């Protein structure tokens, strides 16, 4: 354990010495500073290890043998050591990062940085409030010194504003210190906390000190100066400001927090939450990277300030929450600022240059994810605990504010990520890939991953399964191998995972077994199509597997935390899958925003449950008795964002339509079932409450209307994949409708639809996707007559649409038949009628799909098109075999489903006599119908064949055409807007009201952001006024 005074000595001594050295020694400055920082880090570690091993307790160190208040007293404890380590490692890596800059600038630069970091350490350790003032001043001066590193007018102006602001802030602080000394006669913080003098401190005095520290943390909206600093200074300095200075100031606040009574806690909470929401909101319109990072940084610190204010409510979880969120922010923000300096692009749209070095893009993704709080990063666990604890303390309004703020933050961060992943960068300038700049970023990226693992272990007691995640990391490292190798590995991995969990689930839990089969076996089948892709397909497999891992974790989750963990992983993976599509940038954003919004609704509901049961077991969902309408509504909304129910569906058509050919079935046939699974969990939890009936009724109507709108909209599409996407919306509407009935037959139909939708939507999306790969367009009217070139695809689509339409004898009929019985049983006649109507509307788009693509007139440019790739045909025909089996022998799956659902709803089962199913109202023999129709069809076919076996195939244009032969297929192939009359009649039903609603919402948020941020007009005097007004406003709030 090295005494902190060595830090002081090395920092100050070396700092001044460096300033004195001559020009010749300039080139050694970096090395010298680096060694000094290495010592700093060693210092921190030398304290941290004994604390971590619990060998020592907090140590107070006094100067020159004096006791407080005459000595400069320093205190080192576990948290001091942690913060010191964070600050010093940032310093060390900053030197590495700035290596060349330091060597080329004046010798003073290295010294100033050293002094700054030494000061930050002292701010962490110091227990004397006047001493803290001194360190604050030194920090301010040295910071403004390094802000001037870049020689341009922006940094000069920023440095000046920074000085102005800091001097006002330190003056406020100093006045506070003077008043405290006047009343209490001591400057020693520990005495003040224990109130050794017995005199109650003056509120004004404490207020002044605290508000100064809060102001130091750049509270919204008195933070214009800070934003200008982030924007104007070199990004590497931004990293120091955001990671180092803010971290030290935050610790200062933490140190003072024992002085807080409720009033002050309240102040912190208000200031913090206001900053968190406000700063993120104003950030939305920002497109300059460094300034945006400033907004985000300020927002995160705001959240931490609020967390300190909430300390009493968070109990023993306080440290865990604060540190996980801080560490995520610290590592991510420093990393992002550094990245900004590496690529030298200020406009966020130009961050696509990251893709020149895929490693940088991955790091960027890691940092963005850890800022937002997605798994497996530490802030995920921190936010989880925060929401649980706040909910447990019945602070629901605060939970809402935090979730809203996080959501707003996600808006701009994901937009930025989307730009980086998608936008073109070919025109943008090259940048240097300097190792000294990359290493710090990589280290922080690795640290944030490691911290996530550590935090996860702390919170979950090692129940989280990290092996699949490790496999994904492995996939990333072998990403340069050819696609077929990675494809094989992925299939093997999913196969092995299935082998591990499926047999057991089959024995214990049929519901989970079915969904696990859809997720995992479905995953394997759709992955087979991946063999059709040549080359490396970089970045595909890690994210695809990420989605499947998330899905598997949802199935296996025992606690709400594990469920949420899996849910977010699945969301993240599917986001990356979706955004891979060529035109997917906006669809990816809208998908992730809806998903995050939904996830937060789920999180809030889990919090409410925790508030009542103090338990995070999934089974505790059904124990809750309070607020259950709210809980269930939140969960329903959360899950319905994934099933794309009406109102929450606008992300789906674009996301599914623009995704790659084999991704569309993954995200449509498989991923959407995650929402269904969630809804099952929800419904099981709701049980038979009267409230559940109410919610069920509403969900039923939503489901029915979703089905109608989805199908109608599908009928009016010209893009084949959009058509299928709308069809998915409506199919999920059926499933929601069936689920919402909460009866035996309702659930039967929902399960039957889930299974069938998986089968036929995989077939349709795979086939159409494969066709699209061959013909190069999604627009159906540009195709036509492809049956001759693509018989395999045609047969697949034919079977797919017959199954989807519910026409006997294929499997879709089971769902329709069950629906009829279920709605009469449930007395949901009108909703039911809407569902049936939409079922018939489905014929419109199904015909359009198969006709426009495969029938009609073949276009000249498609005459030489070949049939779909065999790698698509294999999974398609495997699925077709599946459809055929369950069509011919529906009892094979209906009976086990019935047994399973009887566990939840014993009344109203189907009774079976051989292959004949008897429902309360009707009866149906699937095998019999299949045989009857099969025999009849064959006989009639043979008869026609015997009559006209000499029929000759004629040429394309040999048709009865008003005595003329048409020459152009384009004018003869009727497809575009084929249902014009229908649209005229009932097109109003699909008027894009929800699209308008959401776009208006978006516009409002953007307008508010754009209008609000005008208070930052760049004028330093205004900014100083803001600070004073802010201080006064809080003073008055506090006094009243």
């Amino acid at each position, binding site marked *: 354990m090295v005494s902190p005074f060595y830090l002081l000595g090395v920092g100050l001594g070396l700092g001044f010495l460096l300033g004195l050295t001559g020009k010749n020694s300039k080139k050694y400055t970096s090395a010298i500073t680096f060694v000094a920082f290495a010592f700093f880090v060693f210092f921190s570690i030398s304290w941290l290890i004994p604390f971590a091993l619990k060998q020592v307790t907090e140590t107070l160190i006094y100067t020159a043998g004096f006791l407080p208040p005459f000595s400069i007293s320093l205190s080192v404890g576990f948290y001091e050591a942690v913060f010191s380590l964070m600050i010093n490692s940032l310093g060390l890596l900053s030197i590495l990062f700035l290596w060349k800059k330091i060597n080329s600038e004046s010798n003073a630069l290295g010294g100033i940085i050293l002094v700054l970091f030494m000061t930050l350490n002292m701010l962490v350790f110091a227990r004397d409030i006047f001493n803290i003032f001194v360190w604050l001043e030194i920090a301010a001066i040295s910071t403004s010194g390094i802000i001037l590193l870049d020689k341009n007018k922006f940094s000069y102006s920023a440095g000046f504003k920074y000085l102005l602001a800091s001097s006002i802030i330190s003056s406020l602080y100093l006045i506070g210190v003077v008043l405290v000394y006047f009343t209490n006669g001591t400057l020693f913080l520990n005495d003040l906390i224990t109130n050794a003098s017995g005199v109650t401190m003056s509120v004004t005095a404490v207020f002044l000190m605290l508000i100064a520290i809060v102001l130091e943390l750049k509270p919204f909206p008195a933070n214009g100066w800070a934003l200008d600093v982030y924007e104007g200074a070199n990004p590497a300095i931004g990293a120091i400001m955001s990671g180092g200075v803010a971290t030290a100031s935050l610790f200062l606040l933490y140190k003072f927090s024992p002085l807080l009574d409720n009033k002050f806690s309240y102040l912190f909470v208000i200031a913090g939450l206001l900053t968190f929401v406000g700063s993120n909101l104003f950030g939305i319109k920002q497109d300059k990277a460094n300034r945006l990072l400033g907004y985000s940084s300020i927002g995160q610190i705001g959240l931490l300030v609020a967390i300190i204010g909430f300390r009493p409510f968070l109990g023993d979880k306080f440290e865990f929450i604060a540190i996980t969120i801080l560490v995520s922010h610290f590592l991510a923000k420093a990393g992002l600022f550094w990245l900004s300096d590496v690529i030298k692009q200020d406009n966020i749209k130009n961050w696509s240059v990251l893709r020149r070095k895929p490693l940088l893009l991955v790091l960027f993704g890691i940092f963005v994810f850890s800022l937002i709080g997605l798994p497996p990063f530490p802030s995920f666990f921190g936010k989880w605990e925060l929401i649980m604890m706040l909910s447990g303390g019945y602070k629901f309004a605060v939970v809402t504010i935090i979730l809203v703020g996080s959501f707003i933050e996600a808006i701009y961060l994901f937009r930025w990520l989307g730009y980086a992943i998608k936008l073109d960068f070919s025109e943008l300038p090259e940048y240097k890939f300097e190792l000294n700049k990359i290493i710090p970023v990589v280290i922080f990226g690795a640290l944030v991953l490691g911290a996530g693992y550590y935090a996860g272990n702390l919170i979950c007691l090692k129940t989280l399964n990290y092996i699949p995640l490790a496999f994904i990391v492995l996939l990333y490292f072998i990403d340069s191998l050819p696609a077929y190798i990675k494809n094989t590995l992925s299939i093997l991995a999913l196969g092995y995972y299935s082998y591990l969990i499926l047999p057991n689930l089959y024995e214990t839990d049929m519901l989970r077994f079915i969904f696990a089969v859809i997720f995992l076996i479905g995953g394997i089948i759709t992955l087979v199509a991946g063999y059709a892709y040549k080359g490396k397909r970089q970045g595909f497999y890690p994210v695809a597997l990420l989605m499947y891992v998330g899905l598997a974790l949802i199935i296996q989750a025992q606690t709400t935390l594990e469920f949420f963990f899996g849910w977010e992983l699945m969301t993240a993976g599917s986001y990356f899958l979706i955004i891979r599509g060529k035109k997917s940038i906006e669809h990816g954003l809208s998908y992730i925003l809806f998903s995050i919004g939904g996830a937060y609704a789920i999180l809030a509901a889990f919090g409410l449950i925790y508030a009542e049961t103090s338990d995070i077991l999934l089974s505790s969902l059904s124990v809750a008795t309070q607020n259950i309408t709210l809980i269930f509504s939140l969960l329903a909304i959360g899950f319905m964002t994934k099933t794309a129910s009406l109102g929450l569906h606008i992300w789906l058509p674009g996301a599914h339509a623009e995704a790659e050919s084999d991704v569309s079935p993954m995200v449509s046939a498989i991923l959407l079932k995650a929402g269904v699974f969630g809804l099952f969990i929800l419904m099981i939890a709701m049980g038979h409450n009267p409230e559940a009936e109410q919610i069920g009724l509403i969900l039923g109507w939503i489901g029915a209307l979703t089905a109608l709108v989805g199908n109608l909209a599908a009928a009016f599409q010209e893009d084949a994949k959009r058509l299928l996407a709308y069809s998915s919306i409506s199919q999920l509407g059926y499933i929601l409708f069936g689920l919402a009935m909460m009866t035996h037959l309702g659930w039967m139909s929902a399960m039957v639809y889930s299974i069938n939708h998986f089968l036929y939507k995989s077939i349709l999306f795979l086939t159409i996707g494969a066709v699209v790969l061959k013909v190069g367009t999604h627009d159906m009217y540009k195709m036509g007559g492809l049956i001759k070139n693509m018989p395999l695809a045609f047969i697949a689509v034919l079977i797919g649409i017959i199954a989807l339409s519910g026409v006997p004898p294929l499997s879709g009929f089971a769902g329709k038949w069950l629906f009829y019985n279920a709605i009469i049983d449930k007395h949901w006649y009108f909703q039911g009628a809407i569902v049936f109507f939409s079922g018939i509307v489905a014929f419109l788009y199904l015909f359009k799909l198969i006709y426009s693509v495969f*029938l009609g007139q073949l276009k000249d440019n498609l005459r030489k098109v070949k049939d779909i790739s065999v790698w698509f045909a294999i999974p398609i025909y495997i699925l077709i075999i599946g459809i055929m089996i369950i069509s011919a022998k529906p009892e094979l799956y209906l009976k086990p489903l019935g047994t399973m659902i009887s566990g939840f709803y014993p009344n109203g089962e189907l009774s079976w006599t051989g292959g004949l199913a008897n429902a309360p109202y009707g009866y149906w023999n699937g095998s019999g*119908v299949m045989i009857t*129709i099969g025999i009849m069809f064959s006989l009639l076919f043979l008869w026609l064949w015997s009559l006209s076996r000499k029929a000759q195939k004629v040429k394309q244009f040999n048709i009865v055409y008003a005595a003329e032969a048409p020459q152009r297929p384009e004018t003869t192939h009727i497809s575009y807007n084929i249902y014009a009359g*229908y649209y005229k*009649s009932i097109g109003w039903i699909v008027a894009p009201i929800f699209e308008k609603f959401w776009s208006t919402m978006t516009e409002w948020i953007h307008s508010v952001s754009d209008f609000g941020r005008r208070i930052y007009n760049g004028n330093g005097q205004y900014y100083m006024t803001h600070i004073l007004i802010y201080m006064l406003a809080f003073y008055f709030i506090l006094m009243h």
Partner: protein
Amino acid sequence: MEFDFKKLGFTLLGLLIVLNWGLLMSAIMRKINARVAKRYGIPWYQPWVDLVKNYAIRSQITHGIMFYLGPVFRFSGGVGLFLFMPMLITAGGQWTNYSFQGDLVLILYFQFFGMLGMALGAGEGGHPYSAIGISRGLSQFTAIEVPMTLAVISLAIQYQTLSIADIVKAQQGGIMNWTMWTNPVATIAAMLSLLGALAHAPFNLVRAPNEIPIGPPTEYHSTFLGVLQTNAAVLHVVEAALFMNLFFGGASNWFEFIVKTFLIYFWSVFVGTVFPRYRIEHSVSWFLKVPLVLGIIAIIIFM
């Protein structure tokens, strides 16, 4: 399970009766239409002549396999509906065909089998008029099904069953037990939807039979046309039989069957000779107004 040859025999016999009755009925209807239009009209045996002629023609062309299968789908659809529908409800149960394999829902959805197959076959024909006709047909059909579905739901509530045979049995014991008296609103709604289903004027834009040839069969000729005509004869009788079973007490002998199906079919012909033709958007809107409201009322009454 032992194969029931007796059942098969009665079913095939029934099919023969229905086919011939269908042909005769279509001749009578054409005759009625002609007389209303002050024409003489065809002889009563014309449909048989047409059939023989069409089946006899040997110069055939095809546009591909789906084109070829179109009529097979269509005819299977018609025969299938026949098979799954009880014709006569008698003590012996010989004339119930294969209705024990599925209920009313099966019938409602099996209607699409032929329609879809035919649409696809005609689609491969490549004629633009076929596609136009199909798009109109499908559009109109969605609207027709709305009042029909509501009426069926109303019936299911009323009789607490979806079995056609059971619905017929519930109507026995006098004319006042028929659904047309016990559930008049549903009957009206369904009868209005029947107008569309049988596609006479004013809902015959799908084929527009009076002027240019349009609609799915545009490209079909000779044997194909023969198959389609055979199907039409069966299908019309079977559809009328469905309504007979659901709303008019069913039939216990062939005479009753013939009278009832004739009257039901005549209803659409009667309306068709009186009213002019709707455009497609008008007919869709029409079904979604009065018939829809009637269907809703029919359900509300029994809720």
